C-alpha cells in the first residue's frame, strides 16, 4: 500500500524518529500521547468543573476570592492534592495539545523547533512555579489570619 501524507503534515514522519522503535521504525509516542489526552481529559472534567463550582458558584463566588479564601482552601490537604493534580494534568494536556497544533501548522523544521522549545520552557516554568506555590504557601503572611496554625 502506498502511503498518503496527511494534509499540512508532509514532514510529520520525521518527528516520529527516536529511541524504542517498533517494527515499522516508529515509536509508540503518538499512541501514548493520544491515550493520555483522553485519560487526562476525563480527570480534568471532574477537577476543573469541581474547581469552578467551588470557587465561582458556592458562597459569594468571585467576590469572595482573596488571600484568606486561598489560605482556607489550602489548609485542607484535599484541596492541595486537587490543585496539584489539576495543575500537572492541565499543563501536560495543554502542552501536548499545543504541540499537536504546532506540528500541524508550522511547516519549517526550524519554526517547529523554536516554537516547541518556547512551549516546553514556558510549561516547565509554570509547572515548577505552581508546584512550589502549593507546597511552600504560608497562610500566616496575612497578619489578620484566623487560621489556628497562625495563632
Amino acid at each position, binding site marked *: 500500500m502506498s502511503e498518503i501524507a496527511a494534509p499540512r503534515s508532509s514532514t510529520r514522519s520525521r518527528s516520529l524518529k527516536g529511541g524504542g522503535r517498533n517494527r515499522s521504525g516508529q515509536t509508540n509516542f503518538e499512541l501514548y500521547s493520544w491515550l493520555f489526552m483522553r485519560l487526562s481529559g476525563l480527570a480534568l472534567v471532574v477537577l476543573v468543573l469541581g474547581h*469552578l463550582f467551588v470557587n465561582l458558584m458556592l458562597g459569594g463566588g*468571585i*467576590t469572595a*476570592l482573596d488571600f484568606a479564601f486561598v489560605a482556607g482552601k489550602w489548609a485542607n490537604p484535599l484541596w492541595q492534592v486537587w490543585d496539584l493534580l489539576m495543575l500537572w494534568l492541565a*499543563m501536560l494536556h*495543554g502542552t501536548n*495539545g499545543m504541540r499537536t497544533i504546532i506540528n500541524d501548522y508550522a511547516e519549517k523544521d526550524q519554526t517547529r523547533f523554536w516554537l516547541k522549545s518556547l512551549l516546553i520552557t514556558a510549561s516547565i516554568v509554570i509547572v515548577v512555579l*505552581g508546584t512550589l506555590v502549593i507546597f511552600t504557601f504560608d497562610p500566616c503572611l496575612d497578619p489578620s489570619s484566623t487560621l489556628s496554625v497562625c495563632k
Partner: protein
Amino acid sequence: MPSKPVGTLYRGHEGMWSWVAHRITGVGIFFFLLVHVLDTALVRVSPEAYNEVIGTYKNPIVGLMEVGLVGAILFHAFNGIRLILVDFWAKGPRNQRKLMIGVGVVWIVLFVPFVIRHLMHVFGGE
C-alpha cells in the same frame, strides 16, 4: 511535494466545526492557564499583592470575559467526552450526530445557570 498545501480546503459539517472549536477553545484555555498560575503565585509575594490582582477579576469587563472562559471550558470538556465516546464506544461513530446534540444540551443546561449566578456576583456584588 508542493511546499504550500494546495486544494486542501475542506468544508465539512458539524464534525469539522466542532474540531475547529475544540482547537480554538483549547488554545484559549491554555493561555488563560498560564496567566492563572502566575496570578495565583502572588500568594507567595504578599496578601496585598494577591488581593490587588485578583481584584481585577471582579471588575465587570473581566467578569464578562470569565463567562466566555467558562463557556469555552464547558464546550471543551463535553466535546472531549464526545470524542472519547466516538473513539472507544462501538456505537459512538454511528451516533455521532446525537452525541453532538447531547454536547449542546449539556452545555446549555450547565452554562445558563452559571451565567445567571456569576453575573449576579459580578454586578450585584453578592
